[in-house]
């Protein structure tokens, strides 16, 4: 297989680069060892930063966010909910930090308006009674799945391609050039080669592992952040704690839910990440200082992502270092056709893509300028089912009485699943239950997939998409992925829900056991 540019990683950065280069007329191939947004881009807060969060620690990052936030709102309005944001402090918070906040914002070009405390509580009734300061900033919420899916889809429309389940496992380097990239299909186990002119390593936290394959040492440390999704939306705006960045100080609304987080925990393996009970408890307790309702509200899921930290000795708190991005040209390391881009933020993905594409185009002798800051991101159908509440609207509008609701929590009918399946089929040739989960709200409602996973699996067997055995394996895989996010939140109603789930899947369907009895068993009677 040949391609002009091979992009490793289908997160916000990799997919953003693919679109950027495709708009400049280059042909790219994006590969991901899992699927779109299976790294940090699928495990983040979904906050389109106004930049105000960074005014106390990193002026440059603050400014970048301020500019990029504006651009994303313009080019991809369908991915953004312009909620606005509040920074609030409660009794006991650092008065000096509060005093400097507004002028720091000003220096970075961020508009922050003081808000009367009484008004603030009227705007957001769930805020603590112990407010001592409040400022309004232009924060927003962004749907990272829609963003990346639309970036890939647009790149594909422009002639580029995307392969999922394709893990880069090695390079053949001759005369200081990568000639061949070995790919391992993580589903089938098959291997194949790609011959690219240029390789872009956009593997996020895994970037160091990729450079290692080319014998280039890049020290990457891993910091895990955990987030909790509430069942109800708790605020209209993004709520930030007005203090030096710390645990559980941002609440981001999105559609019908809210997300509170995050934590920051050093870990050693980015592939082995779990939201823990300890983190959940700390998020609930810390978060409740801003919004006491967080103590009582129902949570439906916890998840986490990994921030890559390009090693900087001496930094005390992982949250406060290198939120900026690292763009590395590897010529100096003895590989002439490879570039690494890692770190940064979702908010600045476009800028990161632009800078990377500029460098690569420059080196490849392509002189077409970047277009992504002005060319609107087309809203494709690939991303549309990820938006909470969209499917019901579609369904109601068409009001198809023939249709069957496969997922009742998120109101996803058979016809939507048909649509997603045929779309996946035409793009990748294969379909799978986790892939459908990624491209829709399946399994994301209060029942967390207890019923819909089984129904969709059996529907897929019915359609001939997968066989009976695959259905069982995919069902187990899907439930385990959901479980990762349920496990630390199982008290109150979610505990009841999870008991029902286990009663059905283990008690009744025996998915924990051996599903087929030995021959001796069947004939004895």
């Amino acid at each position: 297989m040949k391609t002009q540019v091979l992009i490793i990683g289908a997160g916000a950065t990799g997919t953003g680069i693919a679109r950027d280069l495709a708009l400049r007329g280059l042909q790219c191939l994006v590969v991901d060892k899992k699927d779109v947004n299976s790294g940090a881009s699928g495990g983040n807060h979904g906050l389109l930063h106004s930049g105000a969060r960074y005014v106390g620690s990193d002026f440059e990052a603050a400014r970048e966010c301020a500019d990029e936030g504006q651009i994303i709102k313009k080019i991809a309005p369908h991915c953004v909910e312009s909620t606005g944001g509040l920074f609030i402090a409660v009794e006991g918070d650092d008065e000096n930090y509060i005093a400097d906040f507004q002028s720091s914002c000003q220096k970075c070009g961020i508009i922050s308006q003081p808000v009367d405390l009484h008004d603030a509580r009227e705007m957001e009734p769930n805020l603590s009674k112990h407010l001592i300061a409040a400022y309004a900033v232009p924060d927003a919420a962004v749907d990272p799945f829609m963003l990346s899916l639309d970036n890939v889809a647009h790149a594909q429309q422009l002639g580029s391609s995307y392969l999922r389940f394709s893990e880069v496992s090695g390079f053949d380097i001759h005369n200081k050039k990568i000639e061949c990239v070995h790919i391992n299909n993580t589903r089938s186990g098959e291997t194949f080669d790609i011959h690219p002119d240029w390789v872009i390593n956009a593997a996020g936290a895994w970037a160091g592992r990729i450079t290692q394959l080319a014998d280039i040492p890049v020290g990457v440390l891993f910091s895990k952040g955990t987030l909790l999704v509430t069942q109800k939306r708790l605020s209209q705006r993004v709520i930030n704690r007005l203090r030096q960045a710390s645990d559980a100080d941002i609440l981001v609304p999105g559609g019908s839910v809210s997300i509170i987080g995050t934590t920051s925990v050093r870990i050693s393996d980015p592939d082995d990440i779990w939201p823990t009970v300890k983190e959940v408890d700390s998020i609930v307790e810390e978060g409740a200082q801003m919004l006491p309702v967080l103590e009582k509200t129902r949570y439906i899921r916890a998840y986490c992502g990994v921030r890559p930290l390009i090693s900087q000795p001496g930094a005390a708190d992982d949250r406060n270092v290198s939120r900026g991005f690292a763009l590395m040209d590897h010529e100096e390391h003895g590989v002439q056709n490879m570039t690494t881009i890692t770190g940064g933020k979702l908010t600045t993905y476009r800028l990161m893509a632009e800078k990377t594409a500029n460098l690569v185009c420059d080196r490849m002798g392509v002189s077409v300028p970047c277009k992504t800051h002005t060319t609107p991101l087309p809203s494709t159908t690939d991303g549309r089912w990820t938006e909470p509440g969209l499917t019901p609207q579609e369904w109601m509008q068409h009001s198809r009485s023939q249709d069957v609701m496969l997922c009742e929590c998120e109101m996803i009918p058979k016809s939507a699943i048909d649509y997603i399946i045929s779309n996946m089929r035409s793009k990748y040739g294969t379909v799978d239950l986790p892939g459908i989960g990624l491209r829709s709200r399946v399994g994301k409602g209060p029942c967390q997939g207890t019923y819909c996973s089984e129904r969709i699996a059996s529907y897929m067997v019915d359609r001939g998409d997968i066989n009976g055995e695959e259905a069982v394996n995919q069902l187990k895989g899907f439930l385990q992925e959901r479980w990762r996010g349920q496990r630390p939140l199982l008290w109150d109603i979610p505990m009841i829900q999870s008991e029902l789930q286990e009663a059905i899947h283990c008690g009744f369907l025996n998915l924990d056991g051996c599903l087929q009895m030995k021959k001796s068993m069947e004939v004895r009677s």
Partner: protein
Amino acid sequence: MNTTNDYCDVLVIGSGMAGMAATFFALTRGLKTIQIGQSCPLQFYSGFFDVMAVHPVKDTTTWENPWDAIVQVCKDIPQHPYAFLTKDQILQAFSAWFEFLEQLNFPYHYIQNQNIAAITPIGSQKLTHAVPKTTWKGISSMMNHQKALLVDIDGLKGFSARQIKETLQNVWPDIETARITFPGTTGEVYANHMANALESSDIQKKLIASIMPRVHRVQCIGFPAILGMHHHQKVCENLEKLLGKPVFEIPTLPPSMPGIRLRNALTHGLSQKGGKLYQKAIDFIEPDGKYGFIAHTSNQKIFAKNIVLASGRFMGKGLIAQRTAIKEPLFDLPVYQPEHRGEWHHKHFFNQEGHGIHQAGICVDQSFRPINPDGKIIYDCLYAAGTILAHNDWMRHKCGAGVAVASAFGSVKHVAV
């Protein structure tokens, strides 16, 4: 609102399998019995009567003989509810229970000393001990490698004949499938609506019209569990007459007809036996020097000499999970539980050993009276039965219904009046 007073020898709290069985055993003993249950958990029940099939859970060792399994479990887990009963007592409980179900026109089939591999709606197999007769016919056809026609229905979610056929292909190679439209329906259909509709012989005829041409090629015909609501046996007999072949059912995802029928049959049968069954919540209970306990509902005061607590786990609300601890809400009984929430659930949902939380529950002595950590009986006339009991992971051992009935028997046996 007016409150009424009620008096009884035994108040059974819970209308799940354990509550039903406790009510039955108490009435059989001639005791004045009231049952109060808030929800209808039996509608989630598949109809499979598990006794004991897997132990040790961590090795997923399966047992062909449930009694051998029980002996081993009692050795390894001396606090398991079965360990408080002899084999004879358990047998006595089960045979009385199955006899009662037979009387209620809800016959069960089992093979003495043997577990059987039941068929689930995804085509997996599960070891259980006894199943309703119409479920059994499918299992026996499978064991005998008969040719079968398996029917599924347009708009019935989570039940695909093709999936069952494919998953079972190694153990039951001769399945044909047929998809039919349920008479008079379009779009989504529900098992309970179809079960009700099928009580009409007109609908029965219409249902099978489209499969008639294929019936001569097979030896039996399987359906999702929709064959009748109140007259299940009769519906099956009619269909067998029309088709000229045996019919069988495979339970659907819950709520499932075998469970709904069982609930209906038991509610009716226990009332007939003289039980008073109410569907409502008990708000609180006070111990009473004279009567034992006074239980309060929204409009009732129940003076009970004894209470059998069959209030279930989290689903039943017999146990409540707070963020920091698990509580028993009615008596605030001590709950055996892992030390902190981090140990409640394993990282892997299908973890072989099961989850720590499922060891949690109420500890009882040999007489099924709740005890405190020192082994002291908490109330002389309080008993506990069913899934609320500690050291009883029914989902992994596959022993839900069996433990419910056996422990109900054990509790009621010790009730003194």
